[in-house]
């Protein structure tokens, strides 16, 4: 977080502040209009014109939601900066063909495929070797019906 804050501070130039002000101004104007729209909705409702009141209320709420979304989006995007460091597993196989015991453990620095390990097999006491290293991705890919 400290790094993110530092990065944000460093990249805030005078020009980017100017753009930010423009956007904030637009958001504020739309926000003010949405409040007026809601006020008119109440007034119209009291007169008895329910359809017009509903339209004004809808318009006001939509405008207000857009404003809030814009404001939160700018804050959220900076916080989303993170690097995905996946868990990597090593497949360990016993070299005794009669045993062929297979186990999984987390990757350790210095591991590589076809590395002979000093640790004996838990089942038969035979020599063990790393036969595979991979990460499991659990994310569900979005499918498209095409």
């Amino acid at each position: 977080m400290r790094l993110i804050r530092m990065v944000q501070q460093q990249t805030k130039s005078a020009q980017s502040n100017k753009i930010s002000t423009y956007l904030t101004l637009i958001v504020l104007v739309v926000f003010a209009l949405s409040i007026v729209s809601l006020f008119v909705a109440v007034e119209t409702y009291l007169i008895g014109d329910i359809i017009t009141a509903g339209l004004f209320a809808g318009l006001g709420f939509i405008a207000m939601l857009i404003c809030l979304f814009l404001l939160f989006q700018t804050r959220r995007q900076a916080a989303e900066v993170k690097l995905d460091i996946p868990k990597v597993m090593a497949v360990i196989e016993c070299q005794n063909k009669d045993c062929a015991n297979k186990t999984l453990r987390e990757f350790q620095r210095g591991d590589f495929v076809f590395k002979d390990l000093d640790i004996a097999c838990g089942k038969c006491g035979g020599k063990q070797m790393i036969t595979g290293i991979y990460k499991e991705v659990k994310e569900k890919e979005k499918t498209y019906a095409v």
Partner: protein
Amino acid sequence: MSFITGSDSVTQIIGLVFYGFFIVFIFYGQRIQMYILVREVENSLHKLRHIKDEGRKRAIDVLNEIGKPTSDPTARVDRYLDHFTISPQSMDPAGIVNKLDHILDIRDERLKEEVKFMAPAVADNEVQINNLENTLEAAMALNYIYKVVRHFYIQGKKTLSLYVIMQLQMILPMVMKEAEAYGSALKAFAYGQPIGDSVGPLVVSRLMHGFEVRKVPKDCVVSSVPFEGRTALLLKAEGPGGNVGKPGQAIETVIEEQQGKLAMVIMIDAGLKLEGEKVGEVAEGIGAAIGGPGVDAFKIEEKVTKYKLPLYAVIVKEDIGDAVSPMRKEIHDAADKVIERVRDVVKERTKEGDTVLIVGVGNSIGVGQ
């Protein structure tokens, strides 16, 4: 309901404001659109900067941890990250491949020397030096991506050109994907974990494991193995350090050693998948399955054409992110499917007693032999 003809004064004001907005959007719509685009690019640039800084920090940390430099390597790392290569002049393209090959050789040697200087404790350990070099190259790629995006962002803002910003914003999703892939590759390179691109060497190492291995130039290993009643010459970059070798040169050497008497050449590599295709899908084709600047592909094509050798390719589908980040299980599992496919190809298209050359193209990081 009418906005402007309503009797209520508030309604009339709102109507006027709406018309005002309409007029403003007619004249300033493009500029407002540009500000929104600029903001999007700015957010991505923040992200890129963070990933780039993380890459630099990780590279320095790994150098300090493994290389035990005598002085602070930060300045040297920064110099390394800004390193560039000028490709040869192509106005007269004759002989450009050899020129490019020479330039790339110089680059490799220069960068390796630099890494050795920054990591004196492992200067004699080829595996660690290769892994450190790969880590620094990933950081270098991130640095370059960041600088290019920043360049177009500033240029777009300076000129207030919607089209410069728009082009940048349009390619940003792909750029970000690549940057994030390099970001997650940093740990893989630093720790020596196999990456998606290592699938070719993984397949070949499974076939050659347990047989005698000899080195061939440059940075490759070859092994002669009995395979379905034929002799298979298995070739891959030397592992387990991060190394792609020079398969073009190695294939040239092996073909010349055999005086061109090979029944076929099969190349196994990771191939970029199209959206909608599954990671780890295996596909078969014709031609030199090898990426890079084209020098290796050129050499291979020259040699197989000289001896009229059939050149087959088997690829494992993955996207750019999978190719440079730790190997996914789907890709790891695809290695067995590739072996079966190669077995079929060899049995169907060669006779018993023939000799075939099987090449595992890619980075041998984390894959021994």
